[in-house]
C-alpha cells in the first residue's frame, strides 16, 4: 500500500497525530477527561499536538492555562482527587520543575500518605529531549528523574504505535502517570498495525531480536538503536533492541530475560549518566544478574553538559549511532 | 645364606622397589618382572641392592638367571 493510501485510511500517521488521536479518543470515551495546559487550545499546542481539539471539544475540556505550572498541575491533581480524569500537558519537561512540588509532594504521596483513601488518576504529558537546537532550557531529558519517585508511573513512547495507544491505559490507571513525548519523534511517521488497538503500560518491548548483545533504550534513542542494530548485523553481531517504554516501574523481567540470553548489555539513554535511569538499570543488572554477565555494562548517554544550542555541539552532546555501534562492538571483544 | 634367608632378602628388596606388592606370595617359578610389574629400572635397582646385600657379583649377562624366586635363590647360593 502506498503511503498516501495509508494516510487516507488512517493507518499511516505521525507521532504527533497519534498523540492527538489518543487525546481525542480519551475525551470521547470518558466525560470526566479533559486536557489542560499552556497553549493547548487556541494556539494548538506548542508542538501542534492538540491542534483542532479546542474546536472539537470546547474550552472546558481543552483548557488553556496561564503560565503557572504549579497551579495547573496541582489543579490537575486536585481534580483527579475529586473525581475527574485530567490530562495535563506541560510544554516541556524543563518547565515541569516549576510543578515538581505538586508532582512529588502531592501526586506521588497522597495515595500512600492518606492510607489509600485517595487516588490520583492523572496523566501528565510533557515534551522531552533534544535534537531541535532549542538549547539548555528546552532540551533536557528529565524522565529519569521522575522515574526515581515512588507513586508515579513514567512512560516514554518511542514509536507511533505507543504514542497512539499509551494514553488510554494511562488514563485508566488509578495512579499519576507521566508520559514523556520526545520532541524529535513528533514528526516520525509510521504505519499502524490495524490489528493492534491497545498497548500495555507495564512492559518493555523487544523491538528487534538478537543473540549477541542487548541494547536497552527508549524514546528517541530507540530509532538510533535500531539503526545501530542494523549496522551491527552487517558485521555479524546480532543485537537485541529492547524498548524500555516504561521507566517506572521498570520491567525487570523483560530486561533480565534479554540480558540473560545475550549476556551483554548496552544502555542507551538521552539523560545524563550520573544518577540516571541507565545507572539504575545497570545497578539492577549487577545486583540481580551479575553471574549472567559476560562483559562489562556499557552506557551511551548524553554528555554531562547543559544541551547547547549550536547544532554540531548539540549533536556531539547526544547519544549517536556510531557510539552505540562502537559500544556494542566493543563488548564483542572487537575493536 | 640359607634358601629361606635368600628368599626373605629377595622379598624385602622387591618390597622396597614395589611397595604395593606382596613378593612373599610369589611361587618359586613365577617371573617376578611380570608378577610384580617391574621394569628394567626396577630390575636394575633390585640387582644393585642384591649385589650390595649379598656381595654376589651379578654380571649383566646373568640377569636372565634372576627372573624367578627359585632362580634367585639358586644364583645367590651358587
Amino acid at each position, binding site marked *: 500500500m502506498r503511503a498516501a493510501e495509508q494516510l487516507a485510511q488512517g493507518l499511516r500517521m505521525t507521532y504527533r497525530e497519534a498523540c492527538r488521536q489518543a487525546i481525542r479518543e480519551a475525551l470521547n470515551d470518558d466525560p470526566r477527561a479533559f486536557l489542560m495546559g499552556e497553549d493547548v487550545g487556541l494556539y494548538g499546542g506548542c508542538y501542534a499536538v492538540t491542534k483542532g481539539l479546542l474546536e472539537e471539544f470546547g474550552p472546558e475540556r481543552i483548557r488553556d492555562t496561564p503560565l503557572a505550572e504549579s497551579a495547573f498541575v496541582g489543579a490537575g491533581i486536585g481534580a483527579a482527587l475529586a473525581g475527574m480524569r485530567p490530562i495535563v500537558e506541560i510544554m516541556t519537561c524543563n518547565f515541569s520543575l516549576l510543578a515538581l512540588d505538586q508532582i512529588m509532594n502531592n501526586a506521588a504521596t497522597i495515595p500512600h500518605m492518606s492510607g489509600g483513601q485517595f487516588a490520583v488518576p492523572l496523566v501528565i504529558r510533557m515534551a522531552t529531549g533534544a535534537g531541535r537546537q532549542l538549547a539548555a532550557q528546552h532540551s533536557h531529558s528529565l524522565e529519569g528523574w521522575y522515574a526515581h519517585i515512588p507513586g508515579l508511573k513514567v512512560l516514554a513512547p518511542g514509536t507511533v504505535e505507543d504514542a497512539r495507544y499509551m494514553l488510554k491505559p494511562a488514563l485508566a490507571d488509578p495512579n499519576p502517570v507521566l508520559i514523556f513525548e520526545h520532541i524529535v519523534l513528533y514528526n516520525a511517521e509510521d504505519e499502524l498495525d490495524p490489528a493492534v488497538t491497545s498497548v500495555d503500560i507495564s512492559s518493555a518491548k523487544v523491538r528487534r531480536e538478537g543473540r549477541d548483545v542487548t541494547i536497552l533504550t527508549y524514546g528517541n534513542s530507540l530509532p538510533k538503536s535500531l539503526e545501530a542494530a542494523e549496522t551491527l548485523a552487517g558485521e555479524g553481531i546480532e543485537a537485541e533492541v529492547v524498548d524500555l517504554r516504561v521507566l517506572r516501574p521498570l520491567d525487570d523481567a523483560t530486561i533480565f530475560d534479554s540480558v540473560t540470553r545475550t549476556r551483554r548489555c548496552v544502555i542507551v539513554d538521552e539523560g545524563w549518566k550520573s544518577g540516571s535511569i541507565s545507572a539504575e538499570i545497570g545497578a539492577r543488572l549487577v545486583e540481580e544478574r551479575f553471574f*549472567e554477565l559476560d562483559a562489562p555494562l556499557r552506557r551511551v548517554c548524553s554528555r554531562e553538559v547543559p544541551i547547547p544550542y549550536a547544532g554540531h555541539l548539540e549533536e556531539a552532546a547526544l547519544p549517536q549511532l556510531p557510539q552505540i555501534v562502537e559500544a556494542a562492538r*566493543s563488548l564483542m571483544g572487537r575493536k | 645364606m640359607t634358601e629361606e634367608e635368600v628368599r626373605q632378602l629377595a622379598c624385602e628388596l622387591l618390597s622396597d622397589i*614395589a611397595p604395593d606388592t606382596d613378593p612373599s606370595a610369589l611361587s618359586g617359578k613365577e617371573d617376578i618382572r611380570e608378577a610384580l610389574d617391574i621394569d*628394567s629400572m626396577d630390575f*636394575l*635397582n633390585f640387582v644393585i641392592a642384591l649385589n650390595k646385600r649379598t656381595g654376589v657379583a651379578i654380571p649383566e649377562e646373568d640377569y636372565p638367571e634372576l627372573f624367578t624366586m627359585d632362580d634367585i635363590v639358586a644364583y645367590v647360593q651358587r
Partner: protein
Amino acid sequence: MPALGADMESGTVTEWLVEPGGEVRKGDVVAVVETHKGAIEVEIFEEGVIAELVAKEGDEVPVGGVLARLAKPGEELEMREEPEAAEEQGATTKPGPAEKAPAVEEPPKIAPPSRPKAEPPRPEVPAAAARPAAETRAKVSPAARRRAAEIGIDPETLEGTGIDGSVTLADIEAAGHRAPAARPKTAKGKPDKARGSFDPIEMRQAIAAAMSRSKREIPHYYLTIIIDMGRAQGWLEDYNRERPPEERLLPAVLPLKATALALKQVPQLNGFWEDGQVARADRVNIGWAIALRGGGLIAPAIRDVDTLSPSDLMAALRDVVARARSGGLRSSELTDPTFTITSLGERGADSVIGVIYPPQVAILGLGRVSERPWVANGRVVARPLMVASLSGDHRASDGHTGGLFLSALDRLLQEPDAL
C-alpha cells in the same frame, strides 16, 4: 598454584617447605602439592621473602590461585601475621620445615629481634607496592567465572577473547570442549592419600583429557623405522661388563641420548604448538614416559639430554624415575618437556605409536629390542632390532621432517661411541 599440565585444575597443598619470613631463591622447592598425578614439589621462580602463606596445608587451590605472597628483595615485608608471632619465628630460628628445603640456606632475616615487640613493622615503601595480587587478577566475566566453576575449569589460565582480553563464557565453553576432563563435583573430601601416592581414577581422567584433546586437535602423522641395535647393545655390554650394578647403564640411555642429538639436527620437532605456529624450544628436555605401578603414566622431563654423558643421563633417568614413583616430582618437570619418548621396554610390544602430548609437536615410540632376521650385505642374519615410530603433529611439521629425524636417530645409534 602452578599449572603443571593442560589437564590440571587444582592442587591440594600437603606440605609447606617454607615459612613466612623465609628467604627463597629461584628454583627453591617451597611446597608439596597433591594433584591427580600425585604429589608434586612446587618450585619458586623468583627471589624474595615469603610474606604470607595464603593457602594452608590441606587447602585445595585452583590453578592460578594464590599459594603464597612473596616480598621482593629489599622490599619491606607486609606481614599478615601478628608482629609477635613473626618475631618469634625470626628470633628462635627453630628448625622448621623450611630447613628441609635444600635451597633455603639462611634462617629468616626479617623482623630483627632488637625491634620492640609491640611495635608493628613500619613499611618503608607504600604498602600498595607489596600487594600486586589485585592487579594481576585475570579479567574473567561473571558468567564465565560461574560456568568455569560449574565445569571445573580454571578461567584464569585461559586466554580471553572478550573485551580487554577478558575471558568470556564462550572461552570457557571452548576450553570445556578441549578439556572434558572437567571433574564432576563429587562429595569427595580432601585426599587422604599419603604423599607419593596418587588417585588412579583422577589420573585416568587426566590422561583421558589430555589424550582426547590430542587426538581431537592434533592431526598426527606416523613414520616407522627399524633400527639395528647390534652396535649399541654391544657397546652397552662392554660398558656394563666392567662396572658394578650401580654404575651400569640401562639400554634406554642410548636411544634417549641419540634422540636428543637427532632433535638438535631436526629442531622442528622439538617445541610446542602455540597460537597457530611452532615455538621451537632452545633446550632439549625429553619427557620420559614412566608407567606407574597400578596404572597411569607420567612423563617428567630429563633436562638438556643432549649435553649429558651416558652416565650422567643414567643418573638423571634413575633420579626422575625414582621420584616419579615416590611422588617427588617438581612442578617444572611436568611442564618442561619439549619432546616425549614412550618406550614399552624389553617386555613390551614390538612397536608403539604414541599420542602426542599437547602442546608438544612429536613423540617417539620405541618398541622392544628383539632378535629378528635382518638383511645385511645380501645375507639374512639375526640381529637385535628395534622399531622406532615417530608421531608428528602435521600442523607443525611434515613427514619429510619426521623422516630426517628417524634416519638421524638410526645413524646416531650406529655410532654408540659418539653418544
